[in-house]
């Protein structure tokens, strides 16, 4: 999964504990990691704590990274996702709003989310943190479902069904907001 010489060099540097390689890793992947954690925790101070914890853990455990299982970016996101989940658990906060289902028949027509970004942002905030992070990885970071499945420890088919149901829930929330106005 390590695709080019540049990534291989970066990985080698990280394994040697190179300061330059660590700085480059933060520059390359910091934004992705902050996005996954940010949509889950929301408070920038909490986000920084978990992002910092993620990178310190990754630098320390780089020896356990298996380049054939996932890219470095996916591996880092996976650490970040689980640290954010742990953070929420320690505070007894809800993680997921919708239970996972195995393969289910998806209707052809996807739910329309309208064209009001403000309303959609408010609707996203009604979802549980882990659900927001799924949507972020798929629709913001454009990660393939198999990578999101690796990160969250689920399977791609169940994930696709869950994404559909999450979009449906967003559409319903937006409609409910519209009807109240």
């Amino acid at each position: 999964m390590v695709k080019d010489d540049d990534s291989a060099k970066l990985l080698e540097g990280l394994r040697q504990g190179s300061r330059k390689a660590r700085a480059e890793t933060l520059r390359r992947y910091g934004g992705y990691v902050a996005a996954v954690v940010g949509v889950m925790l929301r408070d920038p101070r909490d986000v920084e704590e978990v992002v910092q914890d993620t990178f310190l853990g990754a630098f320390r455990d780089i020896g356990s990274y298996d380049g054939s299982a996932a890219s470095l970016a996916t591996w880092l996101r996976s650490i970040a996702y689980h640290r954010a989940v742990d953070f929420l658990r320690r505070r007894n906060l809800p993680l997921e709003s919708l239970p996972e289902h195995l393969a289910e028949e998806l209707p052809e027509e996807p739910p329309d989310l309208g064209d009001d970004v403000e309303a959609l942002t408010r609707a996203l905030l009604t979802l549980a943190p882990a659900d927001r992070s799924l949507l972020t990885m798929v629709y913001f970071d454009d990660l393939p479902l198999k990578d999101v499945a690796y990160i969250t420890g689920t399977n791609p088919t169940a994930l696709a069904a869950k994404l559909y149901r999450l979009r449906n829930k967003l559409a319903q929330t937006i409609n409910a907001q519209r009807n109240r106005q």
Partner: protein
Amino acid sequence: MHNATDNNSNAMLRAAIGRLVEQSAPATGWERRVMRAAAPRRRRLRLLWPSAAAAAAVLALICSGWWRVEGGKYQAKN
């Protein structure tokens, strides 16, 4: 038609999630703070070595009997 609706919804989701990401971004300079936190152990060890060496030297002096108790006071041997 479905694809157009889907593409529009995807673009809307991207924009809305982008807002959330922006709102929750850590304060500027967090990368530097991570780098600082990633390297404190060596610095701490550097400070620790001289202290440990000084403590060992004092202990060696005491054990060697260079200092001994005479009349309830620590005094240097003649």
